[in-house]
């Protein structure tokens, strides 16, 4: 059975019936362990005090914020090339989650920035890129909301997502060119010796995994409800036509 079989909305719904309990359980487990461990069973950092614990929210949400956009890019391409409805609806379902993650990353970052840099907000390239990502999400969601016909909306948002990705990418480099910033570089890379200390590292990885599962659960749920909504509107339309 090919993976494309699940592009049939009905099969997709059946598949999620079996998947959702597992992902939900996984989410609760991993997020619970990761966050509880992170918040209550790690030592305070010698330099940052207890504020360092924001990392367990900040980093996973920041990672998701970016990667959700990538997921939308992929599903958009799938829709444009193979016209699988579930794919388009999954992109639609993911966007609000992405924008929420972006906001969480921005807020936790801002709260963290106060003790670290003495300011809630600076036009640091990393932070600015997130601001830009936020705006891209807003445009994408607004376009979905504005168009009546679902297939037209799927087509246009997919095109926007692709062109937008190119320019979001460009913006990232533009922003780095424009300002050298305060934000720290990648500290999670496995091959580098100087990643964050091990005490933080393991719970961080666990809560990242928890966030990813959380996202998967949400996307499956939201895609399901998008499918339900589409079916209802199709049925209503058929009703009206008589």
């Amino acid at each position, binding site marked *: 059975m090919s993976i494309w079989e699940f592009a*049939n*909305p*009905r099969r997709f*719904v*059946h598949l999620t*019936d079996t998947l959702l309990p597992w992902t939900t359980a996984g989410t609760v487990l991993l997020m619970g362990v990761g966050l509880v461990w992170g918040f209550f069973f790690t030592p305070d950092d010698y330099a940052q005090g207890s504020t360092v614990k924001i990392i367990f929210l900040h980093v996973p949400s920041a990672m998701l914020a970016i990667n959700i956009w990538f997921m939308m890019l992929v599903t958009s391409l799938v829709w444009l090339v193979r016209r699988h*409805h579930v794919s388009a609806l999954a992109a639609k379902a993911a966007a609000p989650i992405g924008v929420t993650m972006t906001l969480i990353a921005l807020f936790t970052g801002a709260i963290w920035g106060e003790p670290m840099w003495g300011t809630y907000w600076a036009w640091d390239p990393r932070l600015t890129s997130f601001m830009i990502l936020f705006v891209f999400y807003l445009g994408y969601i607004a376009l979905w909301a504005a168009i*009546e*016909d*679902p297939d037209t909306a799927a087509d246009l948002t997919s095109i926007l997502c692709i062109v937008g990705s190119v320019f979001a990418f460009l913006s990232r480099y533009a922003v780095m060119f424009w300002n050298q910033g305060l934000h720290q570089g990648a500290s999670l890379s496995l091959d580098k010796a100087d990643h964050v200390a091990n005490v933080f590292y393991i719970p961080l990885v666990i809560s990242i995994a928890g966030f990813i599962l959380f996202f998967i659960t949400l996307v499956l749920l939201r895609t399901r409800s998008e*499918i339900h909504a*589409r*079916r209802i*509107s*199709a*049925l209503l*339309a*058929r009703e009206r*036509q008589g």
Partner: protein
Amino acid sequence: MELTVTNLGCRRGELRVLSGVSFSVRGGTALILRGPNGSGKTTLLRTLAGLAPADGGTISMPREALAYAGHADGIKAQLSVAENLRFWADVFGHAGIDAALDMFDLRPLAHRQAQHLSAGQKRRLGLSRLLVTGRPIWLLDEPTVSLDTESVAIFGRMIAGHLADGGMAIVATHIDLGLETAETLDIAQFRASGEDHANPFLDDGFADWGNP
């Protein structure tokens, strides 16, 4: 030359409007589409013109042979009558606009801006545009709206001339155009019934998860 449509499906938004549309038109003849309001005449014409996606089925003619004239005439209010025609003549790579101006007696209005035309005068301009396309197959959606009786007669002559040159015309209309040789197709017979296999959200298999 013959235009053959086989088993064509037409949709509007979520829904299929027409199913199994089949007909053929020979060069030199006209086909009149009839059907009550909302039966799908506009939808069919737009699908033939390639302005709406076909939902299965085949159309034997390339889109490049078709000229479409719908409710909106594509007239620019700030350009004069002659400038409007000249623009479309240029776009379609056609030489002159004189024949088009003469057909509907537009010469006296040639230098008037389109925004100062009455409804019927605008429609006359829209119809004479067909002459500068040089296309053999005309798809006309309610072409005689706003026309007075004299202009309707001219329109009849224009169609007749086009057919005599070997062209074809498919015309959706509610009134009698007085084209003797034309065949009539009642569109109501192609009305789509509920089932629609191209829309997976209408799949009957859904039924079983409504009540688990």
